[in-house]
Structures are given as C-alpha cells and as structure tokens.
C-alpha cells in the first residue's frame, strides 16, 4: 500500500513539475519529423502535439476559452481579430533571444495584424495560388494562360478544363480577395458593390468547378482525379512532389499568378490562459533557431521568416519561385486583413450562394 502511494505521488509530482509540458496546436503536416524530438531532448520538456486543418476550428476553441493549449498557430487575419477578443498574452521578449534571427521586413509586414509584434512570431508564410496538371492542360488548351488568374476566373478558359476537374480552396477570404484583385478592386474594401462584382465573377465560372474543399485537392491533383486547383502554396507543392514520387506520369506546376495574389502569415502565439506560458516561450524560441527553421522549411516547403536560416535551407527550395518568390512577384502580393463581423457575415453568405446557388 505504502509503495503504491509513493508511486502515485511521484507520478503526480512528475506531471506537475517545473520541467513540465507544453501543449502545441499547429496545422496538420506543418513541422519537420524530428523537430519535436529535438526540442524534448534539448529542454526535457514534453510536447503534446495536436493538429487542426482550418483556422475556424482553432478559433472556435480559443474563443470558448480554457483550450489548454500553450502555443497555437493562427493565420494573420484570424490572429488580428483574436487579439481584439483578448485571446492572447503579450510575449515576454526577454525570453526570446532568437528574435534576432527574424527577417525585419516580414516582421514589419505582419505588424498590420499584430502592432509592434507584441503577441506573435511568424512561423511560416506562403501564398494562395493555383497548380495544374501540365499534360492535361496542354491537351485541352495549348495556348492556355498558365501564369494568369484567367485560368480560374475566365469562363472561356476554365470551361475547357471542367471535364478533367477543377477544385477551389474552401476559404471565402482567400478566394473572394483573389477575385476582387483580379477585377482590379481593393481586396481589403468592405464595399458591398465590390463584393457583388466578385460574386458575379465567381458565379460565371461556378458551373465549371467540381468542388470546394480545404485540403482534398492535394491528393486528387497528385492522382490525376482533378487537373487544376486553387490552394495554399505548400499544399500544392506537396501535391507536385507526391505525383513526382509516385512516377505516375503526372506533372504538376504551381503558379503565383502574374496579377498578384494573397500572401498569408501563420503566427505562433500564446493564449492568455495558457497553463505553461514559460515552456511556451521556450518552444517558440526553439522554433526560431536558424537550423530548426531551415529543417521545417526543407520538409514542408513553406518559406519561414527566419533570415538567419535562409543559407541553411536547401538550394532547390530557396530557388523555387513558388516558395521563395522573386522581388517582382513579391511586389504583387497582398496580405488579408480582418474584416468587421458584419462584412464577414455578408461575405460568407455570398460564399454559400456561390457554392449552392441558394
């Protein structure tokens, strides 16, 4: 009995000790295979690693409160609103010496979401563009405008690919902003007129779209079930590499359209009610290590914002314009801002109408 009690106490003490744990909630397929193990070996802190695949899911958990997570990774425009709702605590920058590694240009851009970077650090960033099956597109339209949004938004073009399957990312913020940008309208405007025009544009191509989904297109494009997909850069590049690995004769090309497109930043932040804030700081600082950031980028094909890591990233990744775009492409990229709840509702309602016709 006594021995049992001692054992029980040591278990309880062990789990509550200062060595402790850190509960991380990140996007699926978004970290190198050895990152967690390296962190645990270096600090002795146990990581409970959990994943999500939409910002909405993460946000619902954060807004409900007491999520139990210590580090979460929302996208900029979501983080912006969550800061307003009081979800996050301010970072203690004295505990984050690796902040010196971060690219000052990118940190300045994300200040539009988080003024003076008080609550967050960039994890990875990427673009929302499209990818296509080179052979299938070539067969159907030899002179296809493969570097333009016209591939998606021009009904005369996209209709030619309807038979081999066109998919669009299930994200009204990204797609409606891209449509507005294609029309030469300000993606950040809350004008209902602009929204109406974007809706008409999407309605015009709607019948050529097979489905809207947050991630299904990764597999389908690689397997040849679809031939054109709008999605996140890293996902589409993964699809490209899966097709190459499978040697199934399918060749995928990712494009950041020449008209420009959405750039987004995923940011690490600590919830105000995080049970292990100290360990959370250690985890964030660890990720900002140049080698660790480079390892993640090499594995997930998303660019990091860690200037010190760039020379450690594989040359084939840094030279890939889909991951590290050149300056001329960069100039055409724009970040999304958080909209007012009223506009969000109208936009989501429009999105439902586009998808269902209701």
């Amino acid at each position: 009995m006594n021995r049992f009690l001692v054992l029980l106490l040591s278990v309880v003490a062990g789990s509550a000790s200062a060595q402790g744990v850190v509960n991380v909630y990140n996007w699926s397929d978004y970290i190198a295979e050895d990152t967690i193990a390296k962190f645990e070996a270096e600090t002795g802190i146990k990581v409970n690693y959990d994943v999500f695949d939409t910002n909405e899911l993460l946000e619902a958990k954060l807004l409900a409160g007491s999520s139990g997570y210590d580090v979460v990774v929302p996208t900029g425009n979501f983080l912006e609103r969550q800061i307003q709702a009081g979800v996050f605590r301010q970072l203690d920058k004295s505990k984050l010496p690796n902040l010196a590694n971060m690219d000052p240009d990118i940190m300045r851009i994300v200040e539009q979401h988080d003024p003076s970077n008080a609550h967050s650090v960039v994890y990875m960033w990427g673009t929302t563009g499209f990818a296509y099956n080179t052979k299938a597109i070539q067969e159907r339209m030899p002179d296809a405008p493969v570097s333009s949004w016209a591939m998606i938004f021009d009904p005369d073009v996209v209709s030619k690919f309807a038979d081999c399957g066109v998919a669009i990312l299930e994200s009204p913020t990204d797609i409606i902003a891209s449509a507005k940008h294609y029309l030469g309208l300000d993606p950040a405007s809350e004008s209902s007129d602009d929204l109406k025009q974007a809706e008409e544009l999407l309605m015009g191509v709607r019948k050529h779209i097979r489905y809207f989904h947050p991630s299904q297109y990764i597999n389908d494009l690689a397997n040849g079930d679809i031939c054109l997909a709008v999605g996140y850069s890293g996902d589409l590049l993964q699809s490209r590499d899966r097709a190459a690995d499978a040697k199934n004769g399918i060749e995928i090309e990712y494009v950041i359209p020449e008209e420009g497109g959405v750039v987004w930043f995923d940011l690490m932040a600590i919830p105000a009610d995080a049970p292990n804030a100290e360990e959370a700081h250690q985890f964030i600082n660890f990720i900002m290590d140049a080698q660790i950031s480079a390892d993640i980028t090499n594995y997930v094909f998303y660019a990091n914002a860690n200037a010190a890591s760039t020379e450690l990233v594989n040359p084939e990744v840094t030279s890939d314009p889909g991951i590290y775009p050149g300056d001329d492409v960069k100039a055409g990229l724009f970040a999304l801002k958080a909209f007012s709840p009223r506009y969000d509702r109208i936009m989501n309602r429009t999105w439902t109408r586009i998808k269902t016709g209701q």
Partner: protein
Amino acid sequence: MRLVAKLKSLQRDWVSWVPTLWLGVFFLIPFLVVLKISLSQATIAMPPYLPLFDWVESALEIRLDFGNYLFLIDDPLYGAAYLESVRIAFVSTVITLLIGYPMAYMIATAREPRRTLLLLLVILPFWTSFLLRVYAWIAILKTNGLLNGLLMSLGLISEPLVFLQTDLAVYIGIAYTYLPFMVLPLYASLSKLDRTLLEASEDLGATPWISFVTVTLPLTIPGVIAGSLLVFVPAIGEFVIPALLGGNDTLMIGKVLWNEFFANRDWPIASAVAIIMLFVIVGPLMWLNRINSKTEEATS
C-alpha cells in the same frame, strides 16, 4: 408489511429517477444553455456573445434578443436548408428501408446458427471507424475509382461517370452507414411474428404476396417506424457524410450550422438554427409516434 411496500415504492421511484436525471443532465441543461445563447448577441470577445443577465446598479438586467430567430425567417437560405435536409433524410430513409426490409426478412426466416451469423455480419461494420468507412466510399465512387473502373472494364461506359460530390453519393453514404439501425428493429419485429397467422392466411387461399401485404407488413409496422426513425432523425442533422461525399450544392442544415458557428463566429445564430432544427425533428417524430400507437391499439 407496510415497510416492505414503502421500500418497494422507493425502489420504483429510484428506477424512474435514473432516466429523468439522465435527460436532465444530458439533454435539458445543454438545451437551456443553447437556448440562452440563441437569445444573445454576437460580439468579438471570449466567449463571442454578450451576457444575457447583467447587474446594473444592483438591478438585474435581462436582455433577450429575438432578432436571431427573425433573421432565420428573413433569409430564405435557412428554410431551404431545412427542407433540403428533410428531403435528403427522407430519400435516404426510403432507400435504407427498401434494402433493410428484405435483409431483415431473410435473417428472421433463416435457421440457427445461420441466423446468428447473419446478425453478426450486420453489426460487423461497427468494428471499424465510421469515418474510415465513409472514406472507403470516396475510393469507390471517385473518377478513377473502383466503380468507374468496373463499369469501364465491363464495357458499360466509355468515359468515367461523376458519382462523387452528388446527391446520389450522399444517399449511398447515409443508407450504408445507417443500415444496421434499420435492420435490427425490423428483425426484432419480424422474428416475433406469429407464423400460425401466415399458415391461416395460406389455408384461406392467399398467395404468398397477398399474405405478405395483408399479414406480415401490417404486423411489422412498429419495426418499420422504429427503424425509419433511427435513420431519419440522425440523417437530418448529418454533417460528415454530405461534407465528404456531397457536392457544393448539397445544402444541409448541419453545414449551415457549421458555417454560422465557425465561419461567421455567430454563436447566437448557430444556436437559433439548432433550436429550430430540434423542432423540425420533433414534428415528424410526434406524427410517427401517433401512427405507431394507433397501429399498436389496432393490433392488440
């Protein structure tokens, strides 16, 4: 003597308290919480709605916002989604019944030990994850999937057909998933069927078909209703199957609720949708319950 009677009544009370307590904790309290949120207003905060009760200078202030319900009437989307959900659930239930009844009939008329084996086979799919089984249907129905491959190798079609992301795929998914819930109550009522009644009907010159329609079917109506309810009710609120197998234009109330809760972060509207959904489901339930008790009266 009196003490024993008292103890017995106490025991009886206790037995009725368990389900009451269960309903109170797992149904009534969550229902009241949802009702409360549905009368609130959305805001950017944690949690993302305004409190219903507020102490203003030592006075309790209660703010009820019925606007959320009015909003649901105002926008035709919600009515359309409710109707569409009921329609999809109804079609799926009919399909499930048409497949489930012959299955249950076959199992009920089989001999032991075949009968036990067949029953086991009906329950067997529950041993793997529901999500995995729906995913398997994606592999079967997709463009380069098994079904298209089979049809093309048989020479029935030359180009792959689009099955996935259609209403048909949703019907298949629901019928497949909920089939055991239809078969088991049907089996229970078919196996209780008094065989002598069928012999009597035969003696009076009825063909097997006439016997089935005039004797077997009416006597198993309670099983049909129980099975149909077990399929119909969860199918109305089904979210996963239409999300995985359905098309963009498959508009079901589960998806609308998801949108309100996650995309719009409007918990009050989402709660109002849920409350109305409850009434949409309770309506047909009461109606079927009345038919059920009528047939039971008639048969007893």
